[in-house]
């Protein structure tokens, strides 16, 4: 098992993979929210801000686990 984190280096600055996963996760959640609004599916949610937060967490975990693992 490799415990050394695989950090991103941009201009000599090291970024933790979780930060990158979180940024992509939030962008994906935002895009999902736009699509849900577009097709009037957001009306089925009681409290959309919490759904957006939950989507961001779910996407971050999925991306952090399978796409950009630490």
């Amino acid at each position, binding site marked *: 098992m490799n415990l050394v984190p695989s950090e991103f280096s*941009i*201009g*000599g*600055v090291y970024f933790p993979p979780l930060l990158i996963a979180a940024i992509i996760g939030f962008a994906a959640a935002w895009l999902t*929210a*736009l699509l*849900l*609004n577009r097709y*009037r599916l*957001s*009306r089925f*949610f*009681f*409290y*959309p*801000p919490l*759904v*957006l937060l939950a989507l961001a967490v779910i996407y971050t975990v999925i991306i952090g686990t399978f796409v950009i693992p630490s």
Partner: protein
Amino acid sequence: MTVHARQQGNDAAGVSLAGVYRLLKWFRSEDFRQAVRVALAMVIVYYVSLAMGWDRPHWAGLAVALCSLATVGDSLNKGLLRILGTFLAGFVALLLIALFPQERWHYLLGATAYIAFCTYMMGHSSRWYFWFIAGYVMPLLALAGGPQGATAFETVVLRLQQTTMGVIVYTLVAVLLWPRHSAPVLTHTVSSLADLQRRLLGQYVAVLAGAREDREASKLRAQAAGSVARLPAVVDGAELDSFEVWETRRLWRRCASEFAALNETIERSRQGLPDLEKLDLRRLMPGLPALGPELDARLASVARMLAGRPPQRWPEEIVLEFDEEALDALAQFDRAALVRARDQLQRLEQLTRALFSTVADIHGFGSNPCDDRLTETSTAAWTIDLDRLACAVRSFTAVWIILLACIYVPDFPMPAGVIPVAAAVAIMLALTPWLPVRSVILPVLGTVAFAGVFHVLVMPHLSSFAGLGTAIFIAIFLIMIVLAKPEQAMARGIGTSMFVMVISVSNEQTYTFLFVVNFGLMFLLALAAVWVSTWLPISFEPAQVIFMQLRRFLASCERLASPRHRDAEDQVRRTRLAFDRHEVTALPGKIGRWMAALPAAAFGKGTPEQAGDLVDALQVLGDRMRELVELRGAPQSAALVRDLVADVRAWRLAIQEILRRLAMDPASVEAAHLRARLDAKLEALEARIERALNAAPQGSASSEEVDNMYRLLGAYRGVSETLVEVTRRAARIDWGALRETRF
């Protein structure tokens, strides 16, 4: 040379001449001049700060970036407010350290409560900038001194020193380089407003005489309302820029309040026009044809005096009398509408005369021989504004979220910066609470990227201040030119202020990409905290706010309709009355602004124009309710009250019931049914009033008491008619689509 070649040469010369002409025009434009002023002032403050060896020169740069406005007076005014706000912030920062040196939670609670207080006070007057600075600079100063707080005093003094220097330098540059003074702007604003109100008055009088309302009238009304709202801030700037305006500042302020009162009276008068449609006003009020030209001449003289020319004649008091014979032939409610119209015309006559006298005083043309200037003093009790309070709660929450993150999240980036930034954004949003937080992200990230490139790639190659100063000049100039449009003011402020913060110039210069990244991340974290506080504990989602404000508006209308407010001696009731009056006055405008912030999907089958129509009807309802309250205290004939009290009470209860139902569901009342009920009620009352007047003993009611009865009946009718209009317009709104939850 051939003819063709000569032609080409002439064309080329024409093109280059046109280019030179365009370039010259650009050099003479205010955008170019302002960009040069700000860029030059920025370079000078950096030079002075670095030459003096002062820390944090970007504080002076921030003062230049944020206090540079179009005129010298406006800039000086904002600069002084910045200095005074910094002074208060520094005092509170030191006071809190002295009061709670070891009690962390007490300190944080005191600091956040103070930030919430400053946020609330932002909406108090035209001097909102003072409270903005006082609110966000306090945490900045408290944290800039380091965790021990031992250098807090030096930090406060340094901030004051840099801010004052920035303000002085920009003011000097603005005075010396293409100066644009505020006094001519004030004169122009007042003159344009007088002209707008003259045209509005002319249209009103023309409609009274039987003409149709001009299509341009709504545009004129919007322009006049905008000018009236802007005028106090223009006076603030001009009084600091011009000795003449300073000497007469009280008169200018009175002039601004008289314009506001005139605008409101014109609007109220217009609201009564539908009730007068069938009446022959020329016959009923023989003095009316002479009044229109007289009011027009007075406002024309105001513009003439503002241009420095003396008035040709002084206005004389005009009293409008009725033709008693024609009056007796009128139905009771037509008579009520007529009494109201005369009251409004009489008020217009008084206000234009007062305005004439004030402007004559300002320009030293002497006093009006028959001057009975309005000496109205505000007797309104203090009242709380729930929307400003909600903004204060949002600031409090946003700062607490970021504070707890800084305390409990290890290695949280730049705590000394992220807390003031969160406070600044949250406080600033109190001015435009409908603005989504995400709209700030792009200008912030764009400027951080631009300034980051400047910091990392350009600055390391500069070896002297000549190079640095030139580079700063070019960068600031470019930001000012690219974001020069008036609607880009916020982006311009963000751009210039972010730039000076990110490049972080100092005498011991270091260049690190990490700082730029951390700075960008810090801003995003601060915006995230503000975004969370936009949902919790109070939601700022436009549709929810609109429903809440509509409920509050209708609830206040219902309370105002109740006679409980009559006992104005009771302090609690007086406070309650002031609160309800404030709510019905302010809420329609707020609802309109929130409606404009709705996404297109929220209107469903309706349109934004229909939402605007509903807002207009709510504004009229609010005005009518206030009018009703104002008339309640007027003396009434005991005999007439005895005869009519039961009918009026039933009418009032019906109004209250409809308002309650509308508050629960704006689409629950059918306009056609309401119209039929109102028509039946008016018919029944008409006959009852007729009988009561015939039955009343001779001399039991004075003419003033009879007029007061008509005024009160007219007010009830006005409220009822407006309620019918509100329900008719509310039925056009797609409330289902508005209620739908969306991200």
